[in-house]
């Protein structure tokens, strides 16, 4: 029985580890500035926890096989523990866990404590059951006023976010259902939700933030690779949660300018 149990625990452990090491399913290729650090911290945590996982499971398997009761077993070690050992592993675990944690601090702080730099692209992201809308303030750099009274999701676009077209600042606002961003420029997004909580998750950009009714949450990130990236809603928001999907197109600055100008032209 001891041997069988050891075999099962070892096989489960090694099989589980295989898929992590082989990276059969893994983080999508990172396309934002933070990806480099986040992926590095993930890999480091993964290696350290992997070592602990293997050590604990393999020794568990070994111990149950090695110390199975047999007629020939020597008397058990009558011991109530060992204070020195307890102190050693407490201190080691504390250093490991707290140390890992402190390492991640700076990136979190730079992303979430500091505001976006000057010259960042402004985009307002609005979540509602079950769509994302993106608003660009236009040449004046100012978002026009919106009003809950004007919101009409069935009409889509400007009407869905309740844009007040009598506000002069709204004249050049562009509202779209697909997000366009210039590559290698910081993006300052402000996240809003009109009905329930949604979460703006772009796995390739290593970005996630809940959009909460009543809050306007400012976040910033910098896409670093041209491409199309999927947005998936990551907070249960109702029956259409699974299809609250969107796209981010990261394009060159030139293409972005052209795209925005075309949208402005359409509006006039």
């Amino acid at each position, binding site marked *: 029985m001891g041997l069988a149990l050891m075999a*099962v625990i070892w096989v489960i452990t090694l099989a589980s580890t295989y*898929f992590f090491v082989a990276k059969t399913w893994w983080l999508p290729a990172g396309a934002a500035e933070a990806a480099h650090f986040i992926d590095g911290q993930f890999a480091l945590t993964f290696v350290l926890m992997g070592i602990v996982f293997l050590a604990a499971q393999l020794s568990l398997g070994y111990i149950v096989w090695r*110390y199975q009761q047999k007629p020939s077993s020597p008397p058990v070690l009558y011991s109530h523990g060992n204070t020195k050992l307890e102190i050693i*592993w407490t201190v080691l675990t504390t250093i490991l866990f707290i140390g890992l944690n402190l390492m991640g601090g700076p990136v979190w702080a730079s992303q*979430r404590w500091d505001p976006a730099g000057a010259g960042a692209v402004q985009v307002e992201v609005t979540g509602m059951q079950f769509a994302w809308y993106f608003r660009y303030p236009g040449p004046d750099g100012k978002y026009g006023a919106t009003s809950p009274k004007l919101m009409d999701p069935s009409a889509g676009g400007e009407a869905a976010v309740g844009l007040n077209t009598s506000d002069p600042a709204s004249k050049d606002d562009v509202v779209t259902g697909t997000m366009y961003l210039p590559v290698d420029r910081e993006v300052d997004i402000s996240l809003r939700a009109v009905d329930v909580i949604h979460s703006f998750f772009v796995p390739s950009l290593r970005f996630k933030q809940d959009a909460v009714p009543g809050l306007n949450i400012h976040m910033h990130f910098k896409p670093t690779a041209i491409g199309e990236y999927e947005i998936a809603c990551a907070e249960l928001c109702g*029956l259409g949660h699974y299809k609250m999907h969107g796209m981010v197109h990261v394009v060159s600055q030139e293409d972005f300018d052209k795209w925005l100008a075309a949208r402005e032209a359409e509006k006039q």
Partner: protein
Amino acid sequence: MATPVAIHAHAAPQGFIRKYIFSLDHKVIGIQYFFLALTAVWVGMFLSLLMRLHLVWPNAALPLVGEIKPETYLSLLTMHGTIMVFFVLTTAPQGGFGNYFLPIQIGAPDMAFPVLNMLSFWTTFVAFVTIIAAFFVTGGAPLHGWTGYAPLSALPSAGPGEQLGADLWITSIAIFCVASLMGALNFITTTLDLRAKGMTLMRMPLTVWSWFITAILGLLAFGVLLSAGILLLMDRNLGTSFYVPLVVVNGQIMGHKGGSPLLWQHLFWFFGHPEVYIAILPGMGVASQILSTFSRKPIFGYKAMVYAMLAIGFFGFMVWGHHMFMSGMSPYSAFAFSILTMCIGVPSAIKTFNWLGTMWKGHIRFQTPMLYAIGFVSLFVSGGLSGPFLAQPVLDIQLHDTYFVVGHFHLIMGVAAIFGMFAATYYWFPKMFGRMMNETWGRVHFFITLAGTYAIFMPMHYLGIAGGTRRYSQYTEVAYLQKLMPIHQFMTYAAIITMAAQFIFVINLFWSMFKGPKASDNPWEATTLEWTTTTPPPHDNFGGRTPVVNHGPYEYGVPGAPRDYVMQTDPATTPAH
């Protein structure tokens, strides 16, 4: 302590109803809780089977429910989570085994407040009936998930199931909170006041410590959830705005303003995180008890184990914010919550080391309870080690609300806790029902369940790393999610096999209850007080005797002792610690 015995003793009841239905006997109440949880776990498991089938075959018509619509899927996951967390993970380990064995293990004739005990069971029962009723009302069960985030949970127009179904859901939880508060008071008072002579705190079995600490957590946590639930009911029905700001649902302005959706999350997780420990602490206690007994060795580091559980209970109230890194909560507080979360990993690691140390150089006997205790340790390690990923806010950016989290909490608070319950069932069944369970089928059940649960929940981590979002009723709308379908298929097959194996357990349970070989008073050669009394124990637990405790709880392999174990009530002259 003769006085409390005299006060709390009550005559053995006559008649079926007072004996088995409205019983004051903590043993009967424990068994009632056990069967309630057993019923609930089958309901919860059936719901998860439907979910797994739907994920892989989204258009198939399923037995009993037909084709599953997106909102039905969300109702299934809401009810699965709620039923499992409240009516299984909270009910069986504490209400079931705690009720039955806490008084006996400390040498008491019953709980401190037998009537309150009966009341807390029947209140729990009402809560269970209430939540099941949510399936059958117009609109069906709610779809807001077991976490019930507002405003989704606060607005009847936010989706199907958010009308009467959601009210029943909240009401059920509120009733459950009341029941748990009554239970917690009883457990705490009993442990503090009714210990037999010589049963000092540091001679209490680790199971008693775990139930005691769990009760303290319950007392502090359930009150908060109860209040939160009442406020939510008021938002829904009385037009208040605790959790709802001005929102527009489908073009309609709702009549709320100024509320904070984050307030619900803070209150919910202030309960919700300690709840994780409410589910797992009794499993830790049982694993400790069984590992020591079946290794024929004292527990390694008894005091460290007690302090570790106290530390887990203490820190358990300071880490709720780690569920909210992505919520819009102040990013400064994330740092504090993250550090505190890492701190709670330390006592958990100490416990694991000590479990391995307990088996080291022991005489391991592989009866079914021991297999499950070993499985518990393995799952606790596997589920625990994904914690330090999620505790780091920068990694949580990628992993939050993905299947990585689902895999993490299922392994540690779901399956590890369930393994604790299986271990407890196989271990205490002889004392509770007077007969032994079948050993061969117990082992078969163990190996399939161990391999099966790993096959279901380990792949969830791969899914989550790849960005696999949770609570999606279909993976057809997002291209990168479609590529992950093979993992889902594998998990569904593993789930079907693992669930089928649970029939082995139930058949073994009921068959053994009537046909199993008669159990002796102490079949496992264990040391704690429940093994000093008859099998099953008499109405007052010790047949008029008051046990006197002379030894610590885990005296195995004592050099110079006549047997390889010294029971807690053995004469003080027997050599032992």
